[in-house]
């Protein structure tokens, strides 16, 4: 079957066309052919100037990540025909959230910088170095070890799209790889750093990272684990942790979300005052949440019993 590929071309050194543009190539696609195979065919038979990264062709090296029909994919891991049939076209672009260098090749420097910032190596102390790793211990960090650094998650990250300083999912998943390791000796220090501005609490929970990771790393799950670990380590003096604490309190007290208290407890008194102008506008439209008139759900005692039981079990686990 002949399929047209629409590929974003870009070569800032080409004096005749220094701006990005789209170029069409028609490829004879066989059953089972991957996007990478199609690109190689174009490069070999039609246009040797087309640039893209590739190496292993089997979803291990992480080199060939790119945007296919609007979403981040490994080109070697995606078959053309089913993708074409589903999306009705074939548009190939460089990874989003990264600067294109030439055609489908992006500058990975910010990706590596973010990775470096979380110290992607084990930092044991004398005491922790010899801790034995049980099968259950390994299971907790198993997903995070599967990362092949392809940057699909960072390219999809909606928070990174807006805030380029955000630490972003790849480095966060990597951070959990070490924080969650029983041999690690500086976990609390790491969690303190991750709790700073542009850190783990800035994740918008858009779930794109987990959806588009080709290796099942589930970065959002690792971010949730980091956040839980930070709170259990008592790192609570930041808006992210306060927000979660306010929610946990509200559910235990009323069984519901207390919207007014959430803002107040997260931001504190002074910063909450800054919300007054918007609050007045919202009040005029009947939208202002009023604090402390939240009615309890029926059977709130059951919810509180669940809290008590969960806490008791957590304590039990710690003793082990």
């Amino acid at each position: 079957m002949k399929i047209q590929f629409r590929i974003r071309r870009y070569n800032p050194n080409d004096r005749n066309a220094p701006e990005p543009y789209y170029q069409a190539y028609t490829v004879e696609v066989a059953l089972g052919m991957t996007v990478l195979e199609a690109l190689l065919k174009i490069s070999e038979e039609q246009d040797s100037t087309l640039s893209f990264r590739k190496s292993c062709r089997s979803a291990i090296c992480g080199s060939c990540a790119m945007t296919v029909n609007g979403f981040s994919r490994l080109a070697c891991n995606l078959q053309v025909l089913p993708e074409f049939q589903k999306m009705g076209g074939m548009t190939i672009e460089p990874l989003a959230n990264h600067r294109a260098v030439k055609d489908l090749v992006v500058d990975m420097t910010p990706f590596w910088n973010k990775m470096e910032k979380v110290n992607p190596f084990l930092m044991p102390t004398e005491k922790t170095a010899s801790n034995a790793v049980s099968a259950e211990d390994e299971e907790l960090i198993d997903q995070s070890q599967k990362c092949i650094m392809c940057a699909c998650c960072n390219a999809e990250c909606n928070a990174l799209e807006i805030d380029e300083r955000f630490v972003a999912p790849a480095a966060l998943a990597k951070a959990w790889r070490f924080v969650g390791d029983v041999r690690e000796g500086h976990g609390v220090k790491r969690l303190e750093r991750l709790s700073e501005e542009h850190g783990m609490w800035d994740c918008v929970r858009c779930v794109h990272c987990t959806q588009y990771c080709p290796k099942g790393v589930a970065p959002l799950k690792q971010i949730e684990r980091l956040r839980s670990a930070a709170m259990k380590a008592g790192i609570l003096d930041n808006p992210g942790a306060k927000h979660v604490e306010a929610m946990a309190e509200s559910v235990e007290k009323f069984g519901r979300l207390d919207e007014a208290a959430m803002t107040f407890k997260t931001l504190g008194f002074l910063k909450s005052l800054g919300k007054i102008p918007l609050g007045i506008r919202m009040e005029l439209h009947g939208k202002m949440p009023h604090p402390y008139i939240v009615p309890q759900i029926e059977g709130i005692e059951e919810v509180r019993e669940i809290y008590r039981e969960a806490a008791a079990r957590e304590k039990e686990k710690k003793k082990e």
Partner: protein
Amino acid sequence: MGTGLKYAYYPGCVSQHMTKETNETTRKVAAKLGIELHDMPKASCCGAGLLTDYDYPLYLAINARIFAEAEAMGMDILTICSTCLMVMSTANRDLKADPKLLAETNEVLAKSGLKYSGKVNVKQLLWVLAADYGLENLKKQVVKPLSWLKAAPFYGCHSLRPSDALGFDDPEKPWSLDAAIEALGAEPVQYRGKTKCCGFQVDIVAEKTAEKMTGKRLLEGKERGANCFVTPCPFCHINLDNYQGLAEKALDTKIGMPVFHFSQLVGLALGMTPQELGLSRHLVSPEKIIR
């Protein structure tokens, strides 16, 4: 007219207060369409993702308690909040996939004499109309086709992802909201941001990120010719409507985009009045596009 459709109704916390217009509209729309909504007086907050951060086993148990109530009612859950949908579906996926986890969670519930056996499904209003009720049937109920509306569908992340937990729409090529807009006689506008995030989760934690994100989505739809936005999620509605002014400030531009809850768009096509739909509660008035 009875359709035989009945659900355990879970509006979610925020639609019982800040966005109660969608709760009230949903009840009226369901009554008009012959869909029975049965209240869940014991249901607690699902945790909105924050309880997941707090303590995973606690999050599972709190959600299993909600499922146990629906299971006792013999019904699936219908919510009108995409975040509740995602949070509940994710817990449900984990509990159904892992018998050991379900057993441990039930041990926590047992202290209150409760049990969840994994039989409940979680749906949202959009899906119920798109599949269980059927858009062809919905079309037949339309008394006022919304032919003058160019509506930007804003699915919101939590209606689409993670798809292995939600299991309904296609995250890359979603159809349900687009098709529903068409069934109501309006034109769905295609724009890049339709499957992306509104930023709600960081509204008070990283407010600049949230404001810019909200603004970017609205501008993308506006540039493609939308005269309104439609979302099935109350949190998305809060950002797109309540906080549109903040987004305008953050991006230093005027947007002025009216935003409907999905329930309101259905109600409008079914002939309900702006008063019945609670449109005066919106901060960006949809008055100029109501006929």
